[in-house]
């Protein structure tokens, strides 16, 4: 398939020129030649080898071709006439198979030998194929060239199911195209965030929501185990968790690797890519390389912008005007129509960098600009990318943004708008009937009137005229109005949950229910969090609030839990752990004690101590031994004591009427029943219970979160007690006659505390904050309140009474308990 150029005529024109051979008829190869022709059209006689049987086209536009928005003809960059007009010999459909550096010639698959004075590698990348069974089946395709697109279009004609492995740029563009072509598309992504190299968690979540809304199925944190076959063709994909997804076509888009095989065989220095200097020259001075196949100063690129810069430096070098390539900063856009997404630079949240975040839930907008030393170092934009190029420009030029910092996040128009750059001045300029709060329809005039009437804090404004009480996106406007109207006299109002939000704990809990918010990134977007992914105080709190609000539905986020709750054991000061098995109501037996003794010896517990909660603590257990010791304790019938969690800890009991001469009721039996009912429940903070058999109160029930004191006529129920630094005796909640009532009231009290307390607020400060009368009225004003609360507690318990130790001992989350490998210096190869 050589270009139809007359050989005689051509050799005549080329006589006397240096011979330049280019391997690769792709984007970088042809651009390099274009740049060269522009500088010195007569210097080289050029031959381009291309493995693909076609002219040079714009590879990035394959996505619109797949989506049906463009034809191949429309994406050709250089047609046949370009090669002819410039006397370039195109050898297409005939890949170079051998490079002989010593004799300066290349040999193609068809046997064509082409000598060179200068050689350019522009071989691009190969799609990376994950080594799973079934990867070579017919119907498994990659997304790199026109043939791949043809294969996908062929499959799409028949309709059916498509699976795309890889939720990065390429994978999502493939998924979009196939979906527009009428296929039922599932994207399988290994990481928890789509496009995690380019997006942060917040933007990745918005993207996922939008794609799902468009009918694609997005499976995150999903690891492919095998590609399934039927009748010699691909039939589906099986994930490591056992799920199987049917597929008539599977697109592998998990990444690319520089195509270096040929260069390596020719003896060029090759690491990840072909190593080049600033003039794109390889380890052989006669050979250059350009495009995705190269590695420059340790970096390989997968986008076109850097290639253009490389091509300029290469052409400058080849025409004796060396300039030098300095490396590139890249930015990303996703070419999926209707989705605006932009990212650039560093947004890993490093030392000393600061995030400026703006969210607009109503418009689905999330903007984050990362600033360090008064310079923009990164940006992620979703939903509104109009200012992407402006931020990218500020970033590349390293401009000082101190002067426009306040207005930076609102964009270029705003930041350069003089008076508007002061947000307060902008608010002052609004007319009285301008709408401030869209959710509740409150005008500027109303907000000001309400401030004049005495609402001197954001919170007071919220509770009087409702402005900013729903989604919070106008909080900064309300703050502006307060500042303009009151100056110094603005009051700070109740404490917000943390520095990431303007809402209090109670607001957040209420809004989670009202707006049915069910994921952490969703809460952050809808409630206009001012940080990209929260902080170490709001993440655990939100995780708990969601867990409490949506039992059985919300999936616990391990990343938002502290080490003790992640590992289900207490970390000690030497980095080992302590293990406390549950002893129901403080009861144990020889079998359990024997198992504990055996475990203490086997796992070399250095200290064995009886805790104040009537159970046994084994200290000094190594992280990697935890699943094994749990398995041993499980085998003797014991489960986790949750001594490590914001959860139900122990139910301490005295011996009660069974043995004690003073005992009035079976306190031990009731304690066991309470512990069986309440164990495993997650709480705002730790929660301790005790049951004493008579008012002598040997179990110290009156300094517990919930305490039962048995009396002749029934059971006194006490709440809100605490030992610790600030001792607080309980308040008497009520008295009941039967064990059944004691149990139900206990469940109801716990549920009220679970639903209404702030995260990390023990019952004692909670009861003091809201008042005992409030607790009583919530429980007893309505006849069936206790029953309803208790019923909700029991529903939630259905999902939490699963022994975490048994799950882990059974192999769940092995990654949390095992080393990644082990290094033995003498045989470094043996990373196990």
């Amino acid at each position, binding site marked *: 398939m050589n270009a139809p150029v007359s050989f005689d005529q051509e050799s005549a024109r080329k006589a006397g020129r240096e011979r330049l051979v280019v391997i690769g008829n792709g984007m970088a190869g042809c651009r390099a030649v274009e740049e060269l022709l522009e500088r010195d059209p007569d210097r080289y006689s050029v031959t381009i080898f291309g493995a693909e049987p076609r002219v040079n086209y714009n590879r990035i536009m394959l996505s619109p071709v797949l989506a049906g928005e463009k034809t191949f003809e429309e994406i050709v960059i250089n047609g046949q006439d370009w090669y002819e007009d410039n006397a370039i010999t195109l050898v297409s459909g005939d890949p170079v198979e051998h490079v002989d550096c010593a004799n300066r010639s290349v040999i193609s698959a068809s046997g064509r030998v082409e000598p060179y004075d200068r050689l350019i590698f522009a071989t691009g990348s190969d799609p990376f194929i994950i080594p799973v069974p079934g990867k070579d089946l017919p119907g498994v395709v990659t997304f790199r060239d026109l043939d791949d697109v043809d294969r996908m279009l062929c499959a799409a004609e028949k309709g059916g199911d498509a699976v795309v492995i890889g939720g990065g740029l390429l994978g999502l563009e493939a998924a979009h195209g196939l979906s527009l072509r009428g296929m039922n598309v599932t994207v399988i992504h290994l990481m928890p965030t789509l496009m995690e190299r380019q997006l*942060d968690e917040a933007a990745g979540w918005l993207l996922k929501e939008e794609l799902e809304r468009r009918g694609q199925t997005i499976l995150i944190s999903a690891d492919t185990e095998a590609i399934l076959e039927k009748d010699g063709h691909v039939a589906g994909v099986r994930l490591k968790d056992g799920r199987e997804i049917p597929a008539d076509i599977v697109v592998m888009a998990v990444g690319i690797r520089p195509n270096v095989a040929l260069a390596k065989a020719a003896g060029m220095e090759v690491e990840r890519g072909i190593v080049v200097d600033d003039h794109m020259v390889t380890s052989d001075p006669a050979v250059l390389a350009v495009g995705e196949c190269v590695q420059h100063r340790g970096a390989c690129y997968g986008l076109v912008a850097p290639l253009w810069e490389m091509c300029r430096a290469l052409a400058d070098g080849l025409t004796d005007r060396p300039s030098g390539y300095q490396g590139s900063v890249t930015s990303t856009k996703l070419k999926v129509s209707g989705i605006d997404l932009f990212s650039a630079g560093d947004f*890993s*949240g*490093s030392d000393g960098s600061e995030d400026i975040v703006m969210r607009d839930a109503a418009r689905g907008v999330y903007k984050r600009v990362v600033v360090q030393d008064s310079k923009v170092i990164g940006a992620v934009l979703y939903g509104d990318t109009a200012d992407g190029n402006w931020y990218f420009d500020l970033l590349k030029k390293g401009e000082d943004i101190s002067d426009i910092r306040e207005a930076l996040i609102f964009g270029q128009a705003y930041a350069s708008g003089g008076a508007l750059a002061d947000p307060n001045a902008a608010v002052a300029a609004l007319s009285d009937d301008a709408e401030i709060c869209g959710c509740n329809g409150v005008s500027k005039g109303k907000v000001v009137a309400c401030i004049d009437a005495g609402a001197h804090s954001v919170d007071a404004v919220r509770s009087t005229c409702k402005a900013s009480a729903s989604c919070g996106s106008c909080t900064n406007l309300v703050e502006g109005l307060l500042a303009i109207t009151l100056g110094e006299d603005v009051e700070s109002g109740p404490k917000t949950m943390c520095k990431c939000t303007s809402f209090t704990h109670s607001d957040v809990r209420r809004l989670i229910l009202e707006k049915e918010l069910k994921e952490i990134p969703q809460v952050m977007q809808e409630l206009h969090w001012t940080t990209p992914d929260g902080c170490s105080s709001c993440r655990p709190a939100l995780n708990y609030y969601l867990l409490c609000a949506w039992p059985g539905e919300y999936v616990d986020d391990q*990343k938002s839990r*502290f080490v003790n709750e992640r*590992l289900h054991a207490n970390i000690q000061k030497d980095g080992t752990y302590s293990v406390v098995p549950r002893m129901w109501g403080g009861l144990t037996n020889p079998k359990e004690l024997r198992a504990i003794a055996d475990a203490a010896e086997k796992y070399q517990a250095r200290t064995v101590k009886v805790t104040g909660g009537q159970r046994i603590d084994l200290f000094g257990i190594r992280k990697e031994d935890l699943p094994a010791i749990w398995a041993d304790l499980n085998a003797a019938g014991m489960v986790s004591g949750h001594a490590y969690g914001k959860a139900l800890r122990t139910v301490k009991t005295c011996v009660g009427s069974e043995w004690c001469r003073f005992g009035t009721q079976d306190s031990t039996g009731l304690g066991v029943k309470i512990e069986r009912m309440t164990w495993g429940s997650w709480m705002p903070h730790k929660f301790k219970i005790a049951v004493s058999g008579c008012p002598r109160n040997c179990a110290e029930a009156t300094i517990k979160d919930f305490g039962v004191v048995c009396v002749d006529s029934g059971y006194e129920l006490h709440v809100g007690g605490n030992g610790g630094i600030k001792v607080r005796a309980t308040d008497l909640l009520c008295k009941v006659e039967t064990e059944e009532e004691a149990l139900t009231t206990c469940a109801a009290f716990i549920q009220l505390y679970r639903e209404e307390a702030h995260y990390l607020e023990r019952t004692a400060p909670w009861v003091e904050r809201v008042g005992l009368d409030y607790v009583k009225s919530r429980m007893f004003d309505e006849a069936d309140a206790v029953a309803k609360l208790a019923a909700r507690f029991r529903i939630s318990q259905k999902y939490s009474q699963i022994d975490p130790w048994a799950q882990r001992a059974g192999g769940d989350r092995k*990654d949390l308990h095992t080393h990644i490998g*082990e290094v033995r210096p003498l045989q*470094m190869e043996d990373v196990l």
Partner: protein
Amino acid sequence: MIGNWLDIGPVYQIEPGMARTLPVEGGEEIAVFHTMTGDFYALVNKCPHKQGPLSQGIVHGAVVACPLHNWNISLKTGEALGGDEGCVPTIPLKVDAGRIYLLRSAVLGEKPKPEAA
């Protein structure tokens, strides 16, 4: 030069926001971190304060909060942040084609040589 790098396995062994450990016989245990934004870092698994196991801390941005007393340690430089003083050695790391590599000499505790790549 590939020989200078020790392949410790595929990236998906470490969930983003988490870390895993690599004991070194006769040397210091190493903690390998995967941040929420997909970056990887390796540090000696010992807090400069009182040797807390950094691998067990909460990762936020490119920072880990030590599980023992909540010092914030930079994953990029190993330095303690926010007024605390101390530094833990970092181990040069690279990711290639979905696998994680650590610089051999640094794994063994030798001073990291400037890398040509």
